[in-house]
């Protein structure tokens, strides 16, 4: 017996010596990113870190390279590369971006962030895309999650999260300069320089400007919606120590939107600081502070909205004994709104000044039930000025094996009220019950979602990957506008309810070394109606296409040429009492570029399939062409 044990012991020694029978299987190790690989302790077993592709949610990623090869000229256009989003351009400066339905001008169910800074406005819960100035060249990636993410993220993460992540100054060293001229996009120019102060401190400064031409009417006449924007900013990255990374960034923008009567100016600025401390490879801390302000004015009344936000956010991750990954955090947002509407006979926000502070805290634990099965449970707790405390729990389960992830989730998310739900008056001056008027939403509570999701992600080999996500959503307490009994005084209430379901498919395929395809298909269907006992037609709240297809082709040609195409098809939009019907459209953008020694000359055509088309409302988006020269040194 002793002999046998000794033999067994020697056998194991032999195994170790030969590198077999160990936990570092080639397959497991290959799954790690380079960062993760650098964190593998070479004489101790460490936990297996999670890869983005193993995330238990419907995530689609647009890389900076995908954007640069698409010919997109701003963030909203770049978001067309994720077909789990519905992107509609309404006018020259207005884009609607939504996920899983509820697309309208005041769409309010997405959480959108740039480098951790929340950019949807608490005025109405949506994003003013024309105010979002990001140097596209420096985008590292855009993560688009369709479906609720309220547990980890904020109170608006009901139908999706868009996370725009820019590169560090270390990755954007040197000079970048580009100029472009065209038809619909009239001109664009950008300049960036990245340098380093010493081995630890890297910086970049940049500036950019564009002028965009007007859209048209169906009879060919020009609308008056041309606009321009300039912005400048900086980013500093400091490797303060081997455990501390500190970054500091800011941006200032200003622009003019033309309207029929006069010009409407807008401007804004932000400063953001972030400190990340790696306590060990199983634990890190992040502290983030930012200040953000915007001002936008509407001609001719000079009504304006001025929003000032200060946000402090902190997060701590650690793992417990290799079997659990725990993350928790808390944040406070100080928000001061000054919504000044000067024409009291018209619609406006009352009261003019309001504090919109928000407190959030969350905790999430990921349990490794077996080597391939994970359970992720967590909840967010938040406090807002309208409805007080709210809770957003979720439970997810993921089975991950051999480049395959199968996941399912049940999530509750809330869309907390915005000023447009509670403080909206038409007209602003009080009216007697016999005169039709809208008198705010004093009793408006949060809209609630209960979401069931099921997804599958598969990477059969090194050249292709695909994912499918399905969902069934149940919404309650959705927006409505109804008269108080026996009066013509309307109030904003929670008189609607909805269910929706759909499927999102996305795939990547490296056909050849020089040819890559990205494709996506989304199916969406919903049923929205007034709750029993309520009288309201909510159909205009969701102008959603049923079928949507996107295909991007990225091709390197011989002799330093590139030829790229992005095609997209969207189903028609039905007419509602507030919005026009929109025909289905199939259109494409194409880009031909020539690269030599850091100089790139590109010719880009946008919406080439037809002379013009309408995406939302009645304005006509014309075909556009621009030429662009870029230098990178």
């Amino acid at each position, binding site marked *: 017996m002793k002999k046998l044990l000794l033999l067994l*012991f*020697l056998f194991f*020694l032999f195994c*170790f*010596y*030969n*590198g077999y029978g*160990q936990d*570092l299987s*080639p397959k497991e*190790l*290959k799954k*790690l990113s*380079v*960062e993760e*690989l*650098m*964190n*593998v*302790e*070479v*004489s*101790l077993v460490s936990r297996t870190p999670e890869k983005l592709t193993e995330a238990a949610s419907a995530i689609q990623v647009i890389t900076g390279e995908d954007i640069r090869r698409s010919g997109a000229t701003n963030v909203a256009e770049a978001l067309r590369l994720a077909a789990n989003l519905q992107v509609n351009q309404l006018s020259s400066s207005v884009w609607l971006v939504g996920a899983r339905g509820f697309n309208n001008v005041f769409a309010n169910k997405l959480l959108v962030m740039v480098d951790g800074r929340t950019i949807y406005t608490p005025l109405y819960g949506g994003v003013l895309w024309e105010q979002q100035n990001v140097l596209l060249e420096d985008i590292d990636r855009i993560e688009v999650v369709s479906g609720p993410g309220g547990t980890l993220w904020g109170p608006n993460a009901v139908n999706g999260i868009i996370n725009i992540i820019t*590169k*560090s100054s*270390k*990755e954007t060293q040197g000079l970048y300069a580009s100029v472009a001229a065209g038809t619909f996009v009239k001109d664009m120019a950008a300049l960036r320089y990245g340098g380093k102060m010493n081995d630890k401190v890297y910086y970049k400064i940049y500036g950019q400007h564009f002028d965009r031409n007007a859209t048209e009417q169906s009879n060919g006449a020009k609308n008056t919606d041309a606009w321009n924007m300039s912005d400048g900013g900086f980013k500093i990255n400091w490797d303060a120590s081997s455990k501390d990374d500190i970054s500091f960034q800011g941006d200032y923008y200003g622009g003019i939107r033309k309207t029929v009567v006069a010009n409407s100016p807008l401007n804004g600025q932000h400063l953001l600081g972030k400190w990340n401390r790696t306590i060990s*490879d199983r634990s890190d801390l992040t502290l983030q502070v930012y200040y953000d302000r915007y001002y936008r004015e509407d001609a001719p009344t000079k009504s304006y909205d001025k929003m000032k936000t200060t946000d402090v956010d902190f997060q701590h991750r650690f793992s417990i004994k290799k079997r659990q990954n725990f993350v928790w955090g808390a944040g406070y947002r100080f928000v001061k709104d000054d919504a000044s509407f000067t024409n009291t006979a018209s619609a406006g926000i009352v009261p003019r000044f309001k504090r919109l502070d928000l407190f959030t805290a969350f905790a999430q634990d990921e349990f490794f039930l077996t080597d391939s099965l994970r359970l992720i449970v967590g909840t967010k707790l938040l406090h807002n000025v309208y409805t007080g405390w709210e809770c957003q729990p979720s439970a997810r389960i993921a089975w991950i094996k051999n480049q395959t992830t199968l996941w399912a989730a049940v999530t509750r998310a809330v869309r907390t009220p915005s000023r447009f739900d509670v403080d909206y008056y038409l007209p602003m001056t009080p009216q007697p019950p016999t005169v039709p008027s809208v008198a705010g939403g004093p009793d408006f509570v949060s809209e609630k979602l209960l979401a069931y999701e099921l997804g599958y992600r598969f990477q059969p*080999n*090194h*050249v292709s990957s695909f994912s499918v996500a399905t969902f069934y959503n149940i919404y309650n307490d959705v927006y409505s506008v109804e008269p108080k009994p026996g009066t013509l005084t309307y109030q904003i209430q929670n008189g609607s309810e909805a269910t929706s379901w759909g499927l999102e498919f996305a795939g990547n395929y*490296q056909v*050849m*070394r*020089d040819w890559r395809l990205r494709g996506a298909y989304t199916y969406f269907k919903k049923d929205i109606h007034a709750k029993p006992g309520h009288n309201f037609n909510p159909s205009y709240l969701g102008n959603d296409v049923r079928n949507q297809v996107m295909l991007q082709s990225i091709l390197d040609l011989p002799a330093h040429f590139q030829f790229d195409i992005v095609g997209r098809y969207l189903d028609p939009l039905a007419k509602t009492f507030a919005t026009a019907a929109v025909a289905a459209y199939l259109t494409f953008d194409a880009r031909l570029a020539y690269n030599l020694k850091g100089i790139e000359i590109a010719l880009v055509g946008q919406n080439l399939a037809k002379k013009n088309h309408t995406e939302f409302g009645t304005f006509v988006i014309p075909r556009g062409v621009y030429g662009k020269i870029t230098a990178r040194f």
Partner: protein
Amino acid sequence: MVVLLVMTGFSLQSHSQTRANQVKAVFLFNFAQFVDWPANSFSSPTSPFVIGILGNDPFGFYIDKVIEGEKVDSHPIVVQRYNDADDIRNCNILFTSKSYSAIKNLQNRSILTVGDQNDFAADGGMIRFFIENNKIKLQINLKAAKAASLNISSKLLRLADVIE
């Protein structure tokens, strides 16, 4: 008993050495994703992508497992082992435990040279593995890579100690 203790000590040392070499093997495989080779490095779209090992082979069968069935774009990855630098023909990544002087003659070819000797990168090699806080780190000689027309992605550079 003494024999057992001695053997245990021996095995632990080998064990950590083996782990380090396993991580290094996966790094070699990963470099293929983070470095751009000039188009003329390949004679055809299906010609192999070669990871070469010169001299002593610390990876053994493990690296063959790592690259099994893998491709770089359309190029299937293969591992070749050389006794002498003169045997090297078409090679894309070359690992050696020897000092840089053993492969100095390769400097004009588009071969990503990787080593783990102390002065490997300082002497003109492109990437050196070293161990810090019990983890594998990279030192990159960017100038050497550029001289060989190899473009190392900024993502990798960001994570490495870069020497000019």
